């Protein structure tokens, strides 16, 4: 049955800071994400990117206004609404894996908990996912013993285990080398268009970033949408053409960046 509700709908929402719940980090956010859309939200550090995503995931509620995910008020996403919660996948900046558990245990945790499977029963269920992510050789290692790129993939695998419909990713390219970055960009594109992992169903994606350049849509017609956060305000911009036209200091900073540092890196 086709989804009739938007994947995400924020109406005049005020987002509080996770570090200091008494401080409003974003105000008056009006934002609608339709099912199947791919949004890239840019912002500098402490602009509220993570806080915005945690609000979208229902981990915190708006102090003012409302936030609905697939028509469900996120303030009411309690244990009775577990099914709604599981439609959302979340990838934290850095992964936030469980360091005392192996990669296999990390990836299988959601399916073991919600479907009451033992590790030996859950392992075959996620084997295809681990193979696709290139994680099979590292399944018995703990996160501190693998590189940042593999930790990101582990976190991605964990977020996809229960085949969510709506994936929120907080700075998924941070700390990644060129190889893992390229892999992540291509994989997200495949998820958006419909990956066999999720039965070919297109996924709704929202990504935050502190650098819009890797997310550049050169053709201008890929369908991705962009927004920036600046001075407690959410600015939806639209397509990449609108981003390039925008005369906004934050946009310029996120798209131009430190050219000198980039040149030095290219020379290495």
């Amino acid at each position, binding site marked *: 049955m086709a989804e009739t509700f938007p994947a995400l709908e924020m109406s005049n929402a005020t987002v509080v800071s996770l570090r200091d719940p008494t401080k409003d980090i974003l105000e008056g956010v009006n934002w609608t994400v339709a099912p199947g859309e791919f949004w890239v939200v840019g912002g500098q550090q402490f602009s509220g990117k993570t806080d915005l995503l*945690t609000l979208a*995931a229902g*981990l915190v509620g708006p102090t003012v206004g409302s936030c609905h995910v697939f028509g469900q008020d996120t303030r009411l996403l309690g*244990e009775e609404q*577990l099914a709604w*919660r*599981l439609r*959302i996948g*979340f990838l*934290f900046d*850095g992964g*936030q*894996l*469980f*360091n*005392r558990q192996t990669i296999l245990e990390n990836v299988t*945790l*959601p399916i*073991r*908990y*919600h479907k*009451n*499977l*033992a590790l030996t*029963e859950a392992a075959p269920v996620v084997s295809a996912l681990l193979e696709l992510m290139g994680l099979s050789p590292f399944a018995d290692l703990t996160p501190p013993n693998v590189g940042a790129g593999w930790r990101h993939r582990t976190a991605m695998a*964990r977020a996809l285990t229960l085949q969510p419909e709506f994936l929120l990713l907080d700075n998924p390219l941070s700390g990644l080398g060129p190889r893992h970055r390229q892999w992540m960009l291509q994989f997200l594109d495949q998820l958006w268009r419909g990956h066999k992992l999720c039965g070919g169903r297109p996924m709704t994606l929202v990504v935050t970033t502190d650098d819009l350049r890797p997310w550049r849509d050169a053709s201008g017609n890929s369908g991705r949408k962009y927004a920036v956060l600046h001075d407690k305000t959410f600015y939806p911009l639209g397509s990449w053409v609108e981003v390039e036209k925008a005369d906004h200091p934050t946009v310029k900073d996120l798209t131009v960046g430190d050219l000198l540092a980039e040149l030095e890196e290219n020379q290495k």
Partner: protein
Amino acid sequence: MRGNLAKTLDLSETQVFRRAPLPKSYTDFMGRKAFLFLMTVQGLGAFALITLGVILRKFGVAPNVIRPRIRQEIGRAGMSLLPMFLLIALALGFVVVGQTIAALAKVGQITFLGSAMVVVIVRELGPLIAAMLVLARVGTANVIELGTARALGEVESLEALGIDPVHYMIVPRVIGMSLGIFSLTVYLILGALVSGYFFAFLQNVPLTPGDYIGEIMAALSPMDFALLALKTMTFGFFIAIVTCYHGLAQPLRLEEISRVSVRAVSQGVIACVMIDAIFIVFYLFS
């Protein structure tokens, strides 16, 4: 003023309240300490009730995940401490039990042996020593592990996965520690009684093993067994609650974990002594 100071120092108002310099008035100081104590009791009480609620409501949820964790915690709070407890039991037997037997034998009051052993070892020292040792060994580890997990965002990860952090992280520790302390206490008591008799034997105290066991069994009542189980499991429950509360309930930075560990251990000791005092009332009226 406290709010402005908190913002300037990047601390919460409670932290400013705790760290403010001593007031000139002694009564103000006592009042502040009393208020802090009540705040702590309120926080711990709420956390304990939440944990109890989760234990009852989610008893059959995800047993394939939670039960292995409970077994792991029982192993950590029980099995892995057996060698250390054997040593403590031997020492307790020699230091307390053996000397008590020898002293009573000297004054010809060996008939009081059973009562003395039950009161000293079974009711008081056994459970309290077991609780203190588990608090020191496992309680501090709880604070460090949970504090680190909180600081690294593992709690938010669990919430994002639709997993109740209390159910996944706290309940196994509470159940494991309760059962672990109970088992270790029984082990400690038996070891102390056996090693105590051995010490008395070395001193040629005229007491046969049969008489020794008979005296102790005569002094024990069914209530002692029930209260021993209840007391030790209550110790385990509150030690787990105190240590998990300090590790998990409050947002922590990595550099604060050591300070919080010390506070958790001292509050755990106070909790155990207060529970011990409450149980004396039960013994008096049993």
